[in-house]
C-alpha cells in the first residue's frame, strides 16, 4: 500500500517506531571523514527524516549493524561461560537496493550454507526490517544493474523522498504504523535501470586464468590494506580471538572479528604455512569469489557482488574493481580463442 507524508508526519511514524525499533540509516557525520575537515557518510542511528543522508553513498555498508565488526561470542571464567546479552529491540535499516541485496548474499552464507546456521548472525538478522531507499540516480562507480542487484522485491517499506514529500510503499506488517499518519496514494517503486558502468561477466572461467599475467599488476599496485573487504556489503569473513583479561587471565571472552582476504595473515595456518602471499593472487581470489565462485557453489542465480562500487570508491591505490572484471573478461575471451580448457 502506498502512503504519502510530509516531513513532520513521517517523523511521527519514526517516533512511534523508535519505541520498538532501533532505526539506522545513512547519515552524514560532520568532520569524521578520514581527511581533516571532511565529513563521513555511514550508517548510524537516526531519529528523524532530516538525519538521513539521501544524496551520497555511504562509505561502509549496513552489514556491521547485524554482523558486528567485533562480536563477543561468550564470556568465560575457569569453570563457566555465559552469553552476552543482546538488546530486545528490533532493528530497522534504511538502505539502498544494492545493500538490501547484499544482505541476502550474507544470509546465504550465514544461514543457508550447509546444515547448520550461524546462530549469532541469525539472532541479530531476524530482528532486521528493511526500509529500502529509492536511488534517484546512480553514482559513478555503481554497476548494480550488471549484477542484477538494482531491484528489491521484498522489503518492509520502500521510501521515495521528493523534496518535502515522502512516499512509501508499505508491507502489511507495517501498514498500521504508516496508515495512522499518512494519506493513501498509489506508489510504485522505481529502480535504477542503467549505470554508467556496465560489466560483462564471463560465464565460464577456465582454470588457466589462475596463472594468467593479468593479476601481476595487482601485486605491484595493491597495498593489502583490506579497505575493499571491509566496505563490501557481501564480505563475510571473520577470525576468532580469545581474550584473557589483563587483570585476571583466568577470565576472558571469545570474540569474532571481521577478517580480510587482502590483508597479510588471512591464510596463515598452524605450522607456519600460508597461501596467496602476493597481492595479485589475493586480488584473483577476491574477484573470483565475488563474480564466480559464490554463484557456482550455491548454484544461485546471482553472484556474490551486488555492484555497489564501494571497493572501487575506497581503494587508496585507485584500483577499480570493474576495470579488473573487464580485464578478466578480455583474458577469458582471448584464452577461449587460444583453446584453453576449463
Amino acid at each position, binding site marked *: 500500500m502506498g502512503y504519502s507524508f510530509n516531513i513532520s508526519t513521517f517523523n511521527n511514524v519514526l517516533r512511534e517506531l523508535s519505541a520498538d525499533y532501533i532505526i539506522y540509516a545513512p547519515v552524514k557525520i560532520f568532520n569524521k571523514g*578520514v581527511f581533516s575537515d571532511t565529513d563521513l557518510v*555511514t550508517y548510524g542511528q537516526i531519529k528523524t527524516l532530516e538525519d538521513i543522508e539521501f544524496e551520497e553513498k555511504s562509505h561502509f555498508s549496513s552489514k556491521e549493524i547485524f554482523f558486528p*565488526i567485533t562480536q563477543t561470542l561468550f564470556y568465560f571464567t575457569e569453570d563457566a561461560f555465559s552469553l552476552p546479552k543482546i538488546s530486545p529491540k528490533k532493528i530497522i535499516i534504511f538502505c539502498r537496493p544494492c545493500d538490501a541485496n547484499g544482505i541476502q548474499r550474507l544470509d546465504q552464507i550465514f544461514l543457508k550454507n550447509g546444515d547448520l546456521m550461524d546462530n549469532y548472525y541469525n539472532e541479530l538478522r531476524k530482528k532486521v526490517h528493511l526500509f529500502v531507499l529509492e536511488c534517484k540516480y546512480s553514482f559513478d562507480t555503481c554497476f548494480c544493474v550488471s549484477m542484477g542487484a538494482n531491484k528489491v522485491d521484498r522489503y518492509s517499506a520502500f521510501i521515495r523522498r521528493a523534496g518535502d514529500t515522502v512516499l512509501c510503499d508499505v508491507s502489511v506488517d507495517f501498514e498500521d504504523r504508516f496508515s495512522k499518519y499518512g494519506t493513501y496514494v498509489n506508489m510504485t517503486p522505481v529502480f535504477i535501470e542503467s549505470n554508467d558502468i556496465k560489466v560483462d561477466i564471463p560465464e565460464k572461467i577456465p582454470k588457466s586464468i589462475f596463472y594468467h599475467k593479468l593479476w601481476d599488476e595487482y601485486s605491484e599496485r595493491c597495498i593489502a590494506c583490506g579497505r575493499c573487504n571491509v566496505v563490501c556489503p557481501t564480505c563475510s569473513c571473520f577470525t576468532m580471538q580469545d581474550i584473557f583479561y589483563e587483570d585476571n587471565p583466568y577470565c576472558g571472552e571469545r570474540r569474532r*572479528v571481521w577478517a580480510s582476504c587482502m590483508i597479510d595473515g588471512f591464510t596463515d595456518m598452524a605450522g607456519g604455512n600460508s597461501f596467496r602471499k602476493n597481492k595479485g593472487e589475493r586480488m584473483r581470489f577476491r574477484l573470483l569469489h565475488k563474480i564466480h565462485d559464490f554463484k557456482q557453489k550455491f548454484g544461485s542465480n546471482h553472484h556474490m557482488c551486488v555492484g555497489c562500487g564501494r571497493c572501487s570508491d575506497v581503494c587508496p591505490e585507485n584500483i577499480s574493481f570493474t576495470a579488473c572484471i573487464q580485464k578478466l573478461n578480455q583474458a577469458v575471451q582471448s584464452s577461449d580463442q587460444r583453446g584453453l580448457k576449463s
Partner: protein
Amino acid sequence: MLDINNKKLIKNGYRITNKRQITALRIRVPGGSLDVKYFDIIKDIAQKYGNGKVHITTRQGFEIPGIPMAKISEINEIIHPILIGMESEIGVSIHNPKTGYPAAGTRNISACIGNNVCPFANYNTTELSKKIEKLIYPHDFHVKIALTGCPNDCIKAHMQDIGVIGMVLPMYDSNRCIGCQACVKNCQKVATGALTIVNYKVKRDHLRCIGCGECILKCPVLAWTRGEKYYRMVVMGRTGKKNPRIAQTFMEWVDETAILKVIENLYHYIDQFIDRSLPKEHVGYIVDRTGIQVFKDYVLKDVYIGSLSKIANYMSFSGYGHEKSNYF
C-alpha cells in the same frame, strides 16, 4: 640623484639592492595562497617597471626586481588592489592602500598547502595564516612565522621564530578495530612507535604520540577517527650568520586560541627586551639573554592552557658556533 630615505623605503616593502637607485618590491602572500587575478598586476609591474622577471621568495611572496626607485609611488598605486584583497579584506588595518605596504619587518606568513589539498594535513593552513596576519601585520619587528599542516613540516616551520604544526587527537573505537596492525606498523615506521597491540586491540601511548594522524589515515575500518584539532608550536628556529639553529617544541596539544594569543604576546616580549642598537634581532637571541622563564612569563600571559596541553619547562638549544677547529 634622488634623495632616498632607506629606512622608509625598506618599511614600504622595497629593498636596497646592489644597484644604486634600483629596488625590488616584495608582494606579501599570507599563507602562500594567491588568487591568480593578481598575477596580472605582478606581471604588468615586472614588464613595465622591472626587468620582466619575478623571484619567488622562500617565504612564498613575489619579489619584483629591477625597479627604479623613482617609480615607487606610481607602483604603490598600481598594487593597491593586492593590498585591499590580500590584507584589508582579511581584516588587516591598512591606513592608505594607495601608498603601498605599511611595514616589512614582520615577514610574510608562509604555509604549506594544508587541508585544502594535502591528505596529511590536520587543519586549514590558509585560514589560520589569515587570522595570524590580521593579528600581527603591519609590524616592524623582524618575526618569521610559518604554518605547516602536519609534522612532515613541508614548510620548514622548524626554521622560523614561530612554527605552528597541525595535530589531531586520534580517537579509537576498539569495537571497530579488526586488529590488522596497519596503524601500529605504520606508526612504528614513519612516526613515533606510539601504538602497540594488547589483546588484539591497539593501545596508544599519549606521551609518545605526536598527533600526526597517520593512524587515522591508515585504518581501513575507521577505528581511528579525528578528534579535536590541536597544534604544536616550535619556537626560536633561525638561519643566519651568528648561530643558526632548529626550532624546538614550546607547546603541544594546544588549541588555536592559545596559538594566536602566544603570537600576540610575543610582540610585547620583543618590545620589552629587543636590542635596539641592531637593525633587527631574531627572537631566539633575545631569549638567549632573558632566559626561557622570562619568555614564558610574557608569552603565556592570559593564555588558556587546556587539560591536554603541555608547555616546555626547559628548552635546550645547541645550534652551532664558530669554533671551526672542532670540526675541521
